[in-house]
């Protein structure tokens, strides 16, 4: 006696596929939202930690040269700091607000207005004014735009040298990189879901 397999009704399959797609879209939206909100914050924390580490190292290296007024060495050290990845600028500013040393890593990537200002007057001292350090508050972080680019500025006060140092880390690249990392995961989710749907449909049709 021939046992006839009973195929699942088409309406059931359609419903299942619809539910699967809805789940897929929901997961995708959730996934993207998590990436857009949580990941940048995490990246920002990491950038701040990096800025702090670089600034602390820079402060240790430059302190005695500021006291000795060895401007050449201060500038060379500042130049070295700007070669580190994602560092937008580094500067040393004395209590009078004069820039002892200030360099951008790649000035050409900033807007024309800033480029012209730097070429004419040197490093802009108003960068320091964005953070107000006090005797109690030896360090601080701020996020702002300089020359059209998003930057996290970490400032550190050198009490004995009557100066403060600022290191600006470019955030756009790091955040963009982290956001781009969503793409392979999204593909993986999509492929997994599609395979799941196909498997589900195949099982339904063969039972």
């Amino acid at each position, binding site marked *: 006696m021939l046992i006839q397999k009973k195929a699942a009704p088409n309406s059931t399959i359609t419903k299942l596929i619809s539910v699967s797609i809805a789940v897929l879209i929901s997961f995708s939206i959730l996934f993207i939202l998590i990436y857009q909100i949580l990941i940048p914050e995490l990246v920002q924390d990491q950038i701040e930690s990096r800025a702090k580490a670089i600034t602390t190292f820079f402060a240790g290296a430059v302190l005695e040269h500021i006291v000795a*007024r*060895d*401007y050449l060495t201060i500038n060379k050290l500042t*130049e070295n700091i700007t070669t580190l990845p994602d560092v937008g600028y580094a500067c040393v500013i004395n209590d009078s607000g*004069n820039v*002892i040393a200030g*360099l951008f890593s790649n000035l050409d990537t900033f807007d024309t207005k800033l480029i012209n200002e730097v*070429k*004419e007057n*040197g490093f802009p001292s108003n960068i320091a004014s964005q953070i107000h350090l006090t005797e109690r508050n030896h360090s601080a972080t701020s996020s702002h735009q300089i020359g059209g680019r998003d930057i996290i500025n970490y400032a550190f006060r050198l009490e004995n040298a009557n100066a403060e140092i600022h290191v600006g880390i470019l955030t756009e690249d790091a955040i963009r990189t982290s956001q781009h990392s969503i793409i392979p995961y999204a593909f993986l989710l999509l492929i997994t879901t599609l395979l799941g749907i196909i498997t589900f449909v195949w099982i339904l049709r063969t039972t």
Partner: protein
Amino acid sequence: MIHKQFTFIHSALLVFIPSALTWLTPTYAETKYKFSVTPRFSAQEILTRFGPLTKLLGEKLHSQVEIVLASDFDDYEMRLKAGQFDIAFSNPNHYSKSSATNEVIAIGAKDDDPRMRGLIITHTDSNIKSIQDLIGKQVAIVSWDSTFGFLSQKVFLEEQGINPKTQFKLQEAHDNKQENVILSVYHGDVAAGFINEDALNIVDRYVPSQKIRVITQTTWLPDWALSVKRTLPEMVKARIRQAVLELGLDDPVLKALKLQMFTPATDADYDLVRKALEINVDPPIAVETKPATVTQHCSPNSPSDQAATTSNVATPSVPTAATNLSGTIIPLPVPVNTPLQTSTPDVVSTANATPEPRKSVAKKTSRKRKGKKSNR
């Protein structure tokens, strides 16, 4: 009898042949000349820059010329004064202080002029307009011994009736760097600074060049001196002089040295430097008639060469001439292959000489050079 004659001839040959071979075989391997340089560069850079020159001089002298490194400026100056270097390439300051034991034979020129000068600079926004405005003000200098970072300016100011040591508040730059003079001026630590003309654009990557203003250019002084120990035989001096003066513009030796050429020079060219250094120059030691440290200075290519080596009175048999910075006509060296006279030669006649006229100081007024580092 025949046997005795044979024995005599045999013995004579045994004595004669080795003697003849010794006489004919070049013996330059025994001779070593010591070459040194003002230790402004790292040891590696000195070897890279001056290696080709010492090799060339070794070939010309058929001797070994070895580079001797001094540990620092003081060590170099002391050893140069003591005559411990046969050949030296010194900054004007070191040469001027040691000219009692050393004799300049050529000046290393970075361009077509074997002289350099200093600058007095200030901040563009400063109200200093002339050197008179600097009286009583803080002024940064490279160092008290710096030829173009103090001495050139000192000579110039003294000509203008200003004594910078008493009328300015002079302070040496940190680490005696030209860069620190410019940066001190830029940051307003000092009213003005004394720097080498070559160094004007040396910190352009740190500060905008338009923020530094030149108040005045100062006195021209001769550049670095290639000198030889006075006690070396004239023939050796002549060969060294000729070797460097013959170098063409594209010669790899000059390229390694980062120079354009060597030009003839005399001790008098450095009189201004000595005056600026306020040193009482001892009269030069007379040329000795026998070498002090070198037993044989070149291979006896010819009997006259050897005679010249031992007699130390050789001079060019075909003299030509050129003028030094002061315009004095000095003899050019004898060609290497020219047999050297063993007797005292005739005095070089200026009438027979064909001196090449040099540019006068007045002609050199405003030239701007860019980006050459110098702490002299």
